[in-house]
C-alpha cells in the first residue's frame, strides 16, 4: 500500500502555525529584554507572552493530530539520519512545551501574572521569588537557544532533502512546492 503523499491538512496547518508563532516570539524575546523600560517594552513583553501562550494552546491539539494521523512513512535515508530526525522531532515537541512553560514560571516568579491577550488571566504557577525568577529566566534562555539550534538543524535537513537529495521530504509538508516545480 503506497504511503499518503502529504501530511494531512490539520498536521500541516499546526506545523506552519507553530513555526510562525515561534518565528515571531523568539526574536521578540531577544529584542525586548534589551530595551530600556518604556511603554513599547511593556507592550512587546505582553505580545511575546501571548505568543508563548498560543504555542502552549496549540501544542495539545497538535499532539492529538500527530497521534491520530500516522505521518507519511519516512523516505529512504541512512539509519543514523532516520534516528537523528526522530530524536530532533521528539525534542522539538518537548521544547514547544518546556519553553513557554519556563517563560510562564519566570513571569510568575518575577511577580508578573500572565494575562492572555490582555483578557484571560492565567494562574500564577509559583509565588513571587527573586531567586526562582532568575533561575527560570536562565532556564528559559537556555531552552530557547537549544530550540534555536534544533530548529536550525530541522530547517537545514529539510532544505538538504529538497535541494540536494531532491526528494519529497519538504514538499510533503509544503505541497505548494510541487506545483511550482
Amino acid at each position, binding site marked *: 500500500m503506497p504511503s499518503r503523499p502529504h501530511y494531512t491538512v490539520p498536521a500541516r496547518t499546526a506545523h506552519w502555525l507553530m513555526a510562525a508563532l515561534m518565528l515571531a516570539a523568539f526574536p521578540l524575546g531577544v529584542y525586548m529584554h534589551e530595551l530600556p*523600560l*518604556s*511603554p513599547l517594552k*511593556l*507592550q512587546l*513583553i*505582553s505580545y511575546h507572552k501571548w505568543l508563548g501562550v498560543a504555542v502552549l494552546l496549540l501544542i495539545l491539539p497538535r499532539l492529538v493530530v500527530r497521534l491520530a494521523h500516522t505521518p507519511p512513512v519516512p523516505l529512504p535515508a541512512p539509519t543514523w539520519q532516520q534516528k537523528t530526525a526522530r530524536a530532533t522531532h521528539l525534542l522539538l515537541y518537548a521544547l514547544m512545551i518546556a519553553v513557554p512553560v519556563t517563560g510562564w514560571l519566570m513571569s510568575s516568579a518575577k511577580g*508578573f501574572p500572565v494575562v492572555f491577550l490582555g483578557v484571560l488571566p492565567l494562574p500564577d504557577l509559583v509565588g513571587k521569588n527573586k531567586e526562582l525568577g532568575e533561575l527560570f529566566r536562565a532556564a528559559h534562555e537556555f531552552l530557547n537557544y537549544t530550540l534555536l539550534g534544533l530548529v536550525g538543524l530541522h530547517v537545514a535537513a529539510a532544505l538538504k532533502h529538497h535541494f540536494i537529495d531532491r526528494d519529497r521530504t519538504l514538499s510533503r509538508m509544503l505541497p505548494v512546492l510541487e506545483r511550482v516545480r
Partner: protein
Amino acid sequence: MNTSLPFNAALLAVALPLATGAALAAGPEPVFNQVQADKSRVDFVFKQMNVPIEGHFGKVRTNLVFDAAAPAKSSVRLELDLSSIDAGSSEANSEVLGKPWFNVKDNPTATFVSTAVKPLGGNRFEVVGNLSLKGKTQPLTAPVTVTRQGDTATFDGGFTLKRLEFAIGDGIWADTSVVANDVDVRFHAVARSAGTK
C-alpha cells in the same frame, strides 16, 4: 409604697457596685491615637497591559486620632516617603522615581490630611480630606472600616487613584492602554488607645 428604708438602702448597696462595675467594664469610650508605626501599610495594585501588579510603600508616617465616642472628631494624617516604593520590580522601582512619575527629587513625599470623618453606620466611616502628590492637591474620599479589639483599633480602607490627575506617569507613559489610569490604593493602620501600654 411601704418599702422600708433599710430595704432601699440594701438594694442601693447591691445595685450601685453592680452598675459601677458594669460601667467600669465597658469603660469610657477610648481614643485611639498611639499608632503602631511598623504595622501601617500602604499597598497598591496597578495594571499594565491589563496585568495586575502589586506594590507598596515601605515608609509611611501615620498620625491619627480615632475618638470612639465622637468619631466625627477623629482625624488622620498620612505621609508617604515616595522613594520607599516597591512597584513590583527593580526596573520599575528606579523608573517611577524619575520626572515622568513621582519626581521624588522635587516631591519626596505624598500627604493625606483629613478634613472630616463621617460615620456610615456600624464600624464603617468615610474619611474626607486632601491628597497632595507631585505638587498637586486634590480632594479625596475613602471608606474606612475600623476593627476594635481591646485597646487596639485597626483601620482598613482604600480608594481608586486616577494617576493622571496628579501627572503620575506623564509624557510617553500617559497612554492608559499600557499603564491604566486607575490605581487601587489600600491602607492599613493600627493604633492603640492612649494610656495603655
